[in-house]
């Protein structure tokens, strides 16, 4: 059986994202007969000559009425080599927050560019999102190559432009492929119509990308989600005295006997055992959900972080971070917010708004506020110690949400640049 690859689509409106998704589903034989019947029936009712594959993914009434994608839809397909979870993200600028949503869990972002239009502002924005969120791989599908008669020079000009932007954002693993989602060129198989292109087809790339990092090279990071102390509520009398710390390993590997530190208290202990329900494990690694037992009875609560004793984050009350602002109401200096990082939620004040990313120049500009879809750099002052570390070191331990304390909504996606603001470089957008 294969492993899972999570991919997110991105791109501007009308560049053919829904068609590409429909094509991927179609070419991997993931569309079942009743779904195809429904698409054909609705297409006929609308007077279309062929089946509109976008109807497969645009599941909401308003989306079908307007012919656009409003919200992320999740699709599942498989080839003999691998299974895929696809987050089909909308292209409209007002729904960029959904691109951030889809990208935060993605192993790879597939960004569509219309070969006739080249790099647009949305292309830059989506590449910036991929860079900020450190999506491990980026694949650019230069679409509608059939509409320029499979002309190599046109493709190469767009490719050069893309690589210039990607380099400016510090993106490393970028693959650029000429495709026609409508006709199927270079999607499942390499096309005969692009003999000048020697690289792989899109699906070949997706089948071969490695997923996740090798956790064995990373220090342990284990946010404690839940303390399991069943006492009289045990499923079996033998476990009345059981005390375990449940969580999902964010990074690293853990084995019985390992020396650990509990943050923010700084108390040390050793791992006595690792349980996955009634099965005891010799070792566990990211991203497994397990329960750790420790040798010492120390006070540990939800929100604490268990980490490798000799390599652990320093708890801090001041954090320098990049945020993607996802709310209608703007962010101003002095705002009171909640920071949710791992299993810990703490109050915070936005002490300063240092810059806003200009998407044309890709450099920071002074700003008085952040508005919906803006990307900015802020300094947060926390009400309690938070054991966090730069997002560049850990995609889980350095990520956080900003939550509205009154209205309860999610305000922003945040990524820690530095947990020690005095050492940070204010001009650095590549984290």
């Amino acid at each position, binding site marked *: *059986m*294969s*492993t899972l690859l999570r991919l997110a689509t991105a791109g501007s409106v009308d560049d053919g994202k829904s068609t590409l998704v429909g094509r991927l589903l179609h070419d991997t034989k993931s569309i*079942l*007969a*009743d*779904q195809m019947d*429904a698409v054909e029936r609705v297409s006929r009712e609308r007077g279309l000559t062929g089946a509109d594959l976008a109807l497969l*993914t645009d*599941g*909401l*009434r308003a989306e*079908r009425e307007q012919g656009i994608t*409003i*919200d992320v*839809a*999740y*699709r*599942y397909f498989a080839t003999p080599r691998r*299974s895929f*979870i696809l987050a089909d993200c909308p292209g409209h600028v007002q729904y960029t927050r*959904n691109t*951030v*949503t889809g990208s*935060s*869990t993605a192993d790879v972002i597939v960004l569509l560019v219309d070969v006739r239009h080249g790099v647009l502002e949305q292309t830059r924005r989506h590449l910036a999102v991929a860079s900020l969120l450190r999506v491990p791989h980026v694949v650019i599908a230069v679409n509608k190559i059939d509409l320029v008669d499979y002309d190599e020079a046109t493709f190469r000009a767009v490719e050069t432009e893309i690589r210039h932007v990607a380099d400016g954002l510090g993106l490393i693993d970028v693959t650029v492929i000429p495709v026609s989602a409508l006709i199927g060129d270079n999607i499942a198989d390499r096309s005969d119509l692009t003999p000048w292109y020697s690289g792989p087809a899109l699906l070949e790339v997706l089948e071969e990308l490695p*997923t996740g990092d090798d*956790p*064995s090279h990373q220090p342990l990071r284990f946010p404690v*989600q*839940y303390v*399991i*102390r*069943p006492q009289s*509520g*045990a*499923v*079996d009398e033998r476990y009345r005295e*059981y005390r375990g710390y*449940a*969580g*999902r390993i964010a990074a690293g*590997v853990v084995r019985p006997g390992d020396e650990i530190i509990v943050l923010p208290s700084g108390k040390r202990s050793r791992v006595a055992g690792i349980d996955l*329900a*009634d099965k005891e494990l010799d070792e566990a690694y990211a*991203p*497994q*959900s397990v329960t750790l037992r420790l040798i010492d009875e120390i006070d540990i609560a939800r929100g604490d972080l268990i980490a490798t004793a000799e390599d652990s984050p320093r708890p801090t009350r001041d954090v320098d971070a990049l945020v993607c602002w996802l709310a209608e109401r703007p962010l101003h200096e002095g705002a009171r917010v909640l920071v*949710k*990082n791992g*299993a810990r939620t703490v109050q915070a004040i936005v002490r300063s708004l240092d810059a806003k990313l200009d998407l044309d120049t890709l450099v920071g500009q002074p700003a008085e506020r952040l508005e919906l879809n803006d990307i900015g750099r802020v300094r947060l002052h926390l009400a309690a110690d938070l054991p966090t570390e730069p997002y560049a070191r850990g995609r889980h331990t350095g*990520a*956080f*949400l900003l*939550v509205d304390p009154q*209205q*309860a*909504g*999610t305000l922003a*996606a945040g990524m820690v640049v530095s947990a020690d603001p005095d050492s940070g470089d204010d001009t650095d957008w590549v984290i």
Partner: protein
Amino acid sequence: MSTDFAPYLDDAPTRPYELSQLDVLESEAIHIFREVTAELERPVLLFSGGKDSVVMLHLAAKAFWPGKVPFPVLHVDTGHNFPEVLDYRDRTVERLGLTLVVAKVQDYIDDGRLAERADGTRNPLQTQPLLDAIAAGRYDAVYGGGRRDEEKARAKERIVSLRDEFGQWDPRNQRPELWDLYNARHRPGEHVRVFPLSNWTELEIWRYIERENIELPSLYYAHERDVFRRDGMWLSDSPVSRPREDEPVVRKVVRYRTVGDMSCTGAVESDADSVAKVIAEVAATTLTERGATRADDRLSEAAMEDRKKEGYF
């Protein structure tokens, strides 16, 4: 459902420190159960005895082992349930020592709060008893077994999805959901619906049932049954789903892919009488689970979306 968590047989990853697909999905679901249960006051799990809710309960038992599942289960009983499923439900609740809350559509029909529909189906009638039960129990998190692969409106669902004080879903204004950080906060009167199986497909549910050796109600496996044909589906001949004059009853070997309201859940012709045979059948099918067996989803192009907006799960 078995109490022991049997090891998986053929799901070996290809390199060291890589998790298999089922392990990734299991780990994610357990994480979601623990997060939401830790953060909210009064969770409840929707449990119908159907395969998805059975897998949910199995995962919840794993998440909190060796403690018991720390929340009650809620069943919205349409009054048109399969007797095998009710029997299974009661045995499972008893074995795991859980509290079962039942909201009965029949009670609403009997006292006039709801009217029977002309087409006889009671699935759309579940919404009000569900919302009333949530209000009465003051539940702030409702775990459901919905999967995004089931239906195109469900493909749009967040894992943790806010419902307003009327139980309504607003698909155009969903919270962004980032990394594995779930924001389950809400204002008084609101609640969240939580879908730990969001990323599972029907095939993965069955592979997991095989791997974990989970018992299911017998009607998921091939058996002989008196059925009649309606709208391209085989419906069970039962006191709550009677054939019309032009619908002859025949005895067939069938099984169910979903178990809902008897009056609108169709059986499929199948000789798959074991988990392995069901997996082979699901892997080769050309029809989706709901397309094959759910009459109520055929009511309109947006039937599920419309029901979900009203508060259906």
